[in-house]
């Protein structure tokens, strides 16, 4: 499912006399229509595709009307490319200021997966202002943000651009009571570890296994146990899903069977009903039950499918390795596990992920491993991954240990973040949720900030996080206890966030009585992070 489908699906478009939909790619378009409309992200590559199509038409002597709609905004560079390709005069351009796609009740996505690579790898800041505008949009809808915090360079830039926007438009906004009390901006590169770990909550697993696209997932025949595949929207509206989405996978089966039993009893109630009750039952409850039934069987099917796949790949062992990496023991064993993983060609992105996880947790690989793992990988998947490795090195995901950076120093760095007893109580709760210690990373930081109203006292942690944090300088306004209780916190992830992270914050919110709203540039996962780094053949 694409973002467009969530807004205007094919049938709606057809109603508006759209003849046919094409994917913008390097292919000629066979169509008799005399108008073509391109809905594109403002990328140079897309401009080239458009130019090819237009030029091909020109060569054939066809004349059509062309319209390019840039979403969310037009970039100067795109116009420049159009001009260089000699078709600037043939097309007309428009902008569709589409910033936020609500994926769920508490989740807004900008659907900009390219943000991660563009900013963190290429150093391209083009999306900064886009995010700032999205913030400004929320700001104008829900009143001023009371407190804004951020970690990371990008967060800082977004914050600054956004402040400028606010100041520019200050004239026409009236003082309103803020509906969002805290805003946290976080760079993805502040914490790669969480994203690189396997996800163990249900929603995360579904994403890892089936890839959730725009909040919807395609369950194939092996899940639906029929010959058709089903598209299912995964959100809070799905009663079954909303109960299990944030659960550790091991609990999900129990949950589902309990649910099945409940459903059965509800079905069973119809025994011993008189006619009138039966009529009531059929007219009012049965439909809901049927629906629930259908969803239940789908999720059970999904679980089975996940189980099947995960056991095949020795999911347990994988988790064990990840765990030892995080805790920093049995490094040797983990390294050979990864090696074997590569040798057996289990999966290119999985192997890469494990290598990165090893590198991130160990602050770089020791030179011998660095070379041998890379050689193995190249032998398995081809030499073009030399460039992939270069990318990973540049972004800091897969590096060689520098002589001075001893392991112990790094260990203390990670452990500082992970096993700080002061905040232990809070984070212990997560152990039941997911046995992933670093999971605490982000949530702990947030929790502390919330408690201490600022980064004060956290200098130590912050220093380790590259020191690009910021907090409002002016004193926080007097908070009214009445709405203190129902504080709404906006968590902005720059570069994407995983479902596990969302689950963690939802959990934290439930524990502490906050309501979290998530704004992410895109939903990500370890596989997506790796894919973004790949330098594959075209």
């Amino acid at each position, binding site marked *: 499912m694409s973002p467009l489908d969530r807004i205007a699906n094919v049938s709606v478009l057809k109603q508006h006399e759209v003849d046919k939909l094409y994917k913008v790619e390097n292919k000629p378009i066979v169509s008799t229509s005399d108008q073509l409309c391109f809905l594109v992200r403002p990328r140079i*590559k897309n401009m080239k595709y458009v130019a090819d199509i237009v030029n091909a038409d020109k060569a054939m002597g066809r004349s059509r009307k062309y319209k390019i709609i840039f979403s969310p905004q037009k970039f100067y560079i795109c116009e420049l490319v159009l001009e260089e390709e000699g078709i600037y005069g043939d097309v007309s351009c428009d902008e569709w200021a589409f910033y936020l796609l609500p994926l769920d009740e508490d989740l807004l996505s900008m659907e900009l997966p390219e943000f991660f690579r563009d900013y963190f790898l290429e150093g391209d800041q083009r999306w900064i202002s886009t995010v700032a505008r999205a913030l400004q949009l929320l700001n104008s809808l829900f009143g001023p943000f009371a407190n804004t915090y951020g970690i990371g360079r990008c967060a800082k830039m977004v914050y600054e651009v956004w402040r400028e926007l606010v100041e520019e438009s200050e004239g026409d906004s009236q003082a309103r009571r803020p509906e969002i009390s805290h805003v946290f901006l976080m760079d993805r590169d502040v914490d790669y570890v969480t994203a690189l770990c396997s996800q163990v909550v249900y929603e995360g697993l579904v994403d890892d296994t089936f890839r959730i696209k725009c909040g919807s997932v395609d369950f194939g025949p092996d899940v639906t146990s029929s010959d058709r595949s089903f598209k299912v929207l995964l959100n809070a509206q799905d009663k079954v899903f909303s109960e299990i989405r944030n659960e550790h996978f091991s609990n999900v089966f129990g949950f589902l069977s309990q649910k099945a039993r409940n459903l059965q009893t509800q079905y069973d109630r119809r025994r011993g009903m008189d006619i009138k009750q039966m009529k009531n039952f059929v007219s009012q409850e049965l439909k809901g039950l049927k629906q629930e039934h259908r969803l239940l069987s789908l999720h059970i099917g999904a679980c089975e499918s996940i189980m099947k796949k995960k056991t095949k790949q020795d999911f347990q062992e994988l988790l064990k390795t990840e765990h030892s990496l995080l805790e920093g023991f049995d490094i040797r064993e983990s390294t050979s596990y990864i090696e074997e993983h590569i040798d057996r060609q289990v999966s290119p992105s999985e192997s890469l992920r494990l290598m990165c996880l090893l590198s991130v947790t160990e602050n770089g690989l020791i030179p011998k491993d660095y070379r041998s793992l890379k050689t193995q990988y190249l032998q398995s998947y081809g030499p073009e991954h030399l*460039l992939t490795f270069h990318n990973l090195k540049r972004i800091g995901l897969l590096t060689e240990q520098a002589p001075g950076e001893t392991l112990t120093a790094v260990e203390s760095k990670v452990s500082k973040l992970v096993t700080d007893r002061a905040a232990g109580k809070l984070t212990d709760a997560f152990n039941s949720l997911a046995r992933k210690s670093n999971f605490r990373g982000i949530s702990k930081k947030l929790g502390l900030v919330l408690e201490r109203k600022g980064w004060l006292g956290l200098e130590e942690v912050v220093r380790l996080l590259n020191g690009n944090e910021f907090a409002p300088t002016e004193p926080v306004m007097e908070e009214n206890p009445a709405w203190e209780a129902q504080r709404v916190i906006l968590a902005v992830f720059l570069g994407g966030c995983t479902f596990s992270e969302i689950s963690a914050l939802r959990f934290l919110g439930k524990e502490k009585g906050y309501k979290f709203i998530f704004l992410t540039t895109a939903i990500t996962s370890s596989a997506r992070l790796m894919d973004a780094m790949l330098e594959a053949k075209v």
Partner: protein
Amino acid sequence: MARPRRPQARDAEGGSGKRPGQPRGDRGRRPGGPWPVTRRTGPAGGGRFTVNDGSGRGGLRRGTLRAEGEAAGTSRAGIGARRPGRGHGLLHGELGTRWGRRAFYRKFELYSMAWNLKEDLRDCLVAAAPYGGPIALLKNNFRKEKSPGSRPLLEIYSASGVPLASVLWKSGQVVELGWTASEDLLCIQEDGTVLIYNLFCEFKRHFSMGNEVLQNHVREAKVFHTEYGTGVAILTGAHRFSLTTNIDDLKLRRMPEVPGLQKLPSCWAVLSQDRVTIILLAVGQDLYLLDNTSCSVVTPPGISPHAGAYVQMAVSFNYRYLALFTDTGSIWMGTSSLKEKLGEFNCDFRAPPRQMVWCTRPRSKQRAVVVAWDRRLLVAGNSKECIQFVLDEDSYLVPELDGVRIFSCTTHEFLHEIPEASEEIFKIASMAPGALLLEAQREYEKQSQKADEYLREIKDQNLLAEAVRQCIEAAGYEHEPETQKSLLRAASFGKCFLDKFPPESFVWMCRDLRVLNAIRDYQIGVPLTFAQYKQLTIEVLLDRLVLRRLYPLAIKICEYLRLSEFQGVSRILAHWACYKVQQKDKSDEEVAHAINQKLGDTPGISYSEIAARAYDCGRTELAIKLLEYEPRSGEQVPLLLKMKKSQLALNKAIESGDTDLVYTVVLHVKNELNRGTFFMTLQKQPVALSLYRQFCKHQELETLKDLYNQDDDHQELGNFHVHSSYSSEKRIEGRVAALQNAVDEYYKAKNEFAAKATEDQIKLLRMQRRLQDELDKPYIDYSLHDTVYNLILDGHHKRAEQLYRDFRIPDKRFWWLKISALAEREDWEEMEKFSKSKKSPIGYLPFVEICMKHHNRHEAKKYAARVTPEQRVKAHILVRELDQAADAAIEHKNENEMNLVLSKCTAATDSSVVEKINRAKAQTLKK
């Protein structure tokens, strides 16, 4: 930031609703300074002016006339006998009409002129802008001898005759002067060049009316105003007309020839009908209409055949009416479409008048023409009678929206039809509610009980609200503050006896009058009437004040009217600043400081606009200083680029975080600098560099390589070659060559790993090619692993072994690879042989796994027996020999393993196993 405001879409003459606002050149976001200051004025006929003869001084004459249908009217005609206490010497005239209502006209003095003219007006070329605009005089223009001492002198005065500027005319012979809608002076020269000056005689620009004019000369010219802007029409010596409807968007139109025209037309005018500009000209007794394509002869309806030759014509302010004067002294009045006759008047004077203009008022049914001869002024309507005045000296008529201004060497007067409200109140013995209220208030001040009587009279008729309204309205028509006050006082008095009279009209009238009185002041000299002021809008008025550099007054007005800072004060300050930067006698620091001090952070101020102005004046340093105050980098960059401060621009663009801006600068700089310097510049700006690289990656691959070369980035060069080895190169030779380049670069980058890996790839490519040739199967582009795998799959074990040795494939990998491939081939025999070739570096569990994966339990069992003891349980479970697995687990006394076996058991089939394990567990527990 001050954005240009949209002109109010009002009509020159209220109610017609047909003419849209004048189109403006600069729409969109051009904040700050140099927008055309005057946005909209109604059309005005800037006609050619001829000067009257002088004649004796004389008071104003009053003409009383009687309407045809209204005999009783005469008795009241003496409206000139005014109520006492109304100071200025105004007299009234009255014109009757066919429609029964009579119209009264009055003429009163606006100013006595401050100028001290030594010349007669008739010796000068004169142009006065409508809406109380400035007056331009070109003296000595008609002298033929061009000695340096007698050069023409161009002088500009305010409407009150205060000199604004003057300049010695050094250009060619001027034919005509005229004002644009934005109060710029157009000087149309004989050679067809039009020079544009501002109010202060500062030259702005020039344009030409076409080459054809050069030979034939411009004989006559007219400046006119339409919805398209200010236009110029010329008549050449070849008797041809050319015109442009908008001098800001110059498109010359040459009008068609008038057949048989041998001499200059006796008179002509520019008409605007349905947005088409046409020319009406008279030759003797013939009238011709010239449009874009054709010339047609027209006859005004209802004109007497003996009317004679046309000598003068006049078009009304709004282009709707036309008046024609013939040499028999007959004046024909009608619509300018020549479809309807409105009236006719025969006067005794046959001499061609100096000037003829319309005198109308918006929303009035009355139409009158003012005709001026050397010493006589005549107001004629559709009536047998007329009003006549004697002119003491040369006078010049300026048609306005609601009347006619008449100025001479000494005075400046306004002649207009008296609006209804004023008439009702001031008419002798008027019993109109307004008149009674005014009287009541006067009596009240005298503390006379008559006040109550008057008031009661109004109240009895339930007309008090009407009375108040009349007084308020009439106050607007008065120029004399005293009269205004007394009317407003009356209104205020009346309001006290009214419930719920909405106060807005009163409050606004007070405010507007205060503004009007301020600008009508003799020092300011903008004699706007209320109607003109409303038509012009406050915004345009402010712009005009700014144009006259009356910044303090403009700011005061903004503050007084409580206009938003954004629209008002900020804009004016910005203008002030733009003017300030032109003061060359002050140092850059001083000016920048002064500007910042006054402007501070006033909202809506665009420092970049001011800086742009400074740059235009050649003060680059000042511009840079001013830009420092500009908070938005996006606004700084374009100007910095223009000033060729690309480095600074680049810094600012990067600061702004706006990639578009960075790209703009980068690509600008790219064209501006030579390649080397350009690359060096980028070097210092990583953000810009990475952006440019991205651009190059898609658009200019070669440049990308140059970029890397420039900074000796061998690593990236290596990557570049690797990339091209599989993306752009198709032939093996090319690919090898690219890879070889990469190897060299990697060595230079001291990246031995990458170099070795690439060398291996070259080796592999060559090998694959050989394999491909020999085995006739595609191998190219497989990874090493896949190559070997495929070889084994096809049974080329020897070759596989060779690759294994050549590329030093680790044993573990090779074993994994080989057994997987063999299993896929189902070559169990070869697998067994392989397993026995030497001790397996990966153990034998993988053998079991792979056999089971391919559903060969029989083979799997063979290997299960060979696995190490630690893996035995797993192996047995894999081949589904739970019993043996249990045995192994029990043997190991490993509870985890036992549990693992247990978890695989199903109650139905494996009860014995379960029992066995449970027993063993129990035993272990005992111990």
